[in-house]
């Protein structure tokens, strides 16, 4: 899949690949041309990705070649022991949880997975979790608290699944319960939005001490298409809605919703998987180190303060606890 604003870049990249193939023959010599084209394409990528509109960022965030949760597991951890099931109903494949070791540090790693092949996508419900997914995540967060290991949540979901059975099994209750319980979990919680942060579906595992975002990820209360259909009465106005909603990492950092932007290399995570995964890993380990020394009560109080200050009307006080 290529993005329309990348046409020129992709064309140059294809040409470079062709030349490299031709270059393998003994009687030709394209080294100079290849080097020049490479330079040109780097420059073009830098320019394009330096000036993406919010709507273009939406497309990058949804790019199917972006690293998925499975890639992060493999790229970041030396061990991953998956733990299944919510102990009530089933095992949600859109929400993957397990013990992981990252550079010797033991964590509970939780993430949403959209799936890459058609079969995977169907099995994972396109990354849209059902209530049992949120309940599995909460069960294992409580376990992490008991075992005194930190929690790391990687988020990439269009939304919590809007289905009949999801309603019957309490989608609203499951998310609400997670928000309430995560506010009191006495172990560090680090959140990284790696692709799409789709509304309540994302927030259901995103009440963290540190919330970070990749530079071309998005985090929104509603998809821009949906917002445009409602407020503009025209889903074609999605680019306007994307701008008005303020969903990019830079805007969310300014609003205080996230604590840090993890930079993707120019060209986005879909062009630079390994570098991106390493950057995410570095950021997680750095914050784990700092949070390790914060007392448990203080940690929970600071998490409370972090979320109550968002959209606070003025400086009236809440009781300290």
């Amino acid at each position, binding site marked *: 899949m290529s993005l329309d604003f990348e046409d020129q870049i992709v064309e140059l990249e294809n040409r470079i690949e062709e030349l490299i193939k031709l270059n393998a023959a003994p009687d030709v010599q394209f080294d100079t041309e290849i080097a020049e084209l490479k330079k040109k394409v780097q420059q073009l990528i830098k320019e394009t990705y330096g000036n993406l509109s919010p709507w273009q960022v939406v497309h990058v965030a949804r790019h199917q070649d972006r690293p998925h949760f499975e890639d992060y597991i493999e790229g970041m951890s030396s061990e991953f022991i998956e733990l299944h099931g919510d102990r009530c109903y089933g095992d949600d494949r859109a929400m993957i949880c397990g013990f992981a070791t990252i550079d010797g540090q033991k964590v509970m790693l939780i993430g949403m997975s959209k799936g890459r092949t058609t079969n995977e996508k169907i099995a994972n419900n396109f990354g849209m979790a059902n209530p049992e997914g949120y309940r599995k995540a909460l069960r294992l967060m409580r376990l992490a608290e008991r075992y005194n290991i930190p929690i790391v949540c990687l988020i990439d979901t269009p939304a*919590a*699944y*809007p*289905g*009949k059975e*999801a*309603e*019957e*099994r*309490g*989608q*609203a*209750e499951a*998310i*609400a*319960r997670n*928000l*309430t*319980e*995560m*506010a*009191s979990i006495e172990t560090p919680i680090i959140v990284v939005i790696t692709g799409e942060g789709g*509304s*309540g579906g994302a*927030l*259901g595992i*995103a*009440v963290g001490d540190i919330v970070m975002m990749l530079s071309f990820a998005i*985090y*929104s*209360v*509603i998809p821009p298409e*949906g*917002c445009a*259909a*409602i*407020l*503009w*009465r*025209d889903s074609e*106005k999605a680019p*306007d809605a994307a701008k*008005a*909603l*303020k*969903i990019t990492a830079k805007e969310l950092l300014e*609003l205080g*919703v996230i604590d840090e932007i993890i930079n993707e290399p120019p060209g986005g995570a879909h062009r630079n998987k390994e570098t991106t995964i390493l950057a995410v890993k570095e950021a997680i380990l750095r914050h784990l180190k700092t949070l390790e020394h914060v007392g448990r009560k203080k940690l929970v109080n600071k998490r*409370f303060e972090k*979320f*109550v200050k*968002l*959209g*606070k*009307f*003025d400086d*009236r006080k*809440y*009781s300290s*606890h």
Partner: protein
Amino acid sequence: MAWFSKTKQRKSSIDKDELWAVCDSCKAHVYREEWEKNLKVCPKCGYHERITCQQRLQLTIDEGTFEELDSDIEISDPLKFSDAKSSYADKAADTKAKTGLNEAVLTGFGTLNGISVVIAIMDFRFFGGSLGSGTGDKILLASDYALRHKQPYIVFSASGGARMQEGIISLMQMAKTCAGISRLNKAGVPYISVLTNPTFGGVSASYAMVGDINIAEPGALIGFAGRRVIEQTIKQKLPENFQTSEYLLEHGFIDAIVERKKIKSFLHSVLQYSMRK
């Protein structure tokens, strides 16, 4: 979320003729006086019409005991949001003038049959009861008052969900209000959630669904995603009673369905069990 704006506004069930009210559900004509006396519940079919936060307050809190909290908190416009037609700030000013409210929730404290309680009542007339930052702040501040005074907290919800015009800041109110409920849970302060028609999206997926006790009015629509969104997703027709209080009771998410006129005494009875010394 924000499902409310997609549905057409229900026509007011009050007929222009001042003598008669027309039930939205069964279309019965009822003497206005009888309609009001029956608390805007249809005497023929039991349909519960939406009521304002002031009416709800009157039905719930002992006369002359209510003191409002944070009445000065109003809409802030964190994104400086505008759509095709108008700015959020202009719309907010209009809504404020029309309803006389500053935000989608009224909060305060008073007594309920003599028991001191803290109460928050949402009002659907104000941006479809959507969860703006002012709404979230008031709900959290009221829960904090309940925490400090160790008084039960009662929240009446009526909301289409998140307030789109406040974007991500609206979403964050879900985490914020739930953080307040979490503190009540920890301190053993009772929290009772009363879900009224409709309660959806960002409100059902936060404080409204996590009451120690969840009660609902008969026939109220309660859910996460809106009916239309679900039908479009699964390409199936949904059952007639989908997302009603009765449906939720059947699936285990509501403790009791209580008629409007019995809610006060129900709350009073339940609170007797939660106030152990």
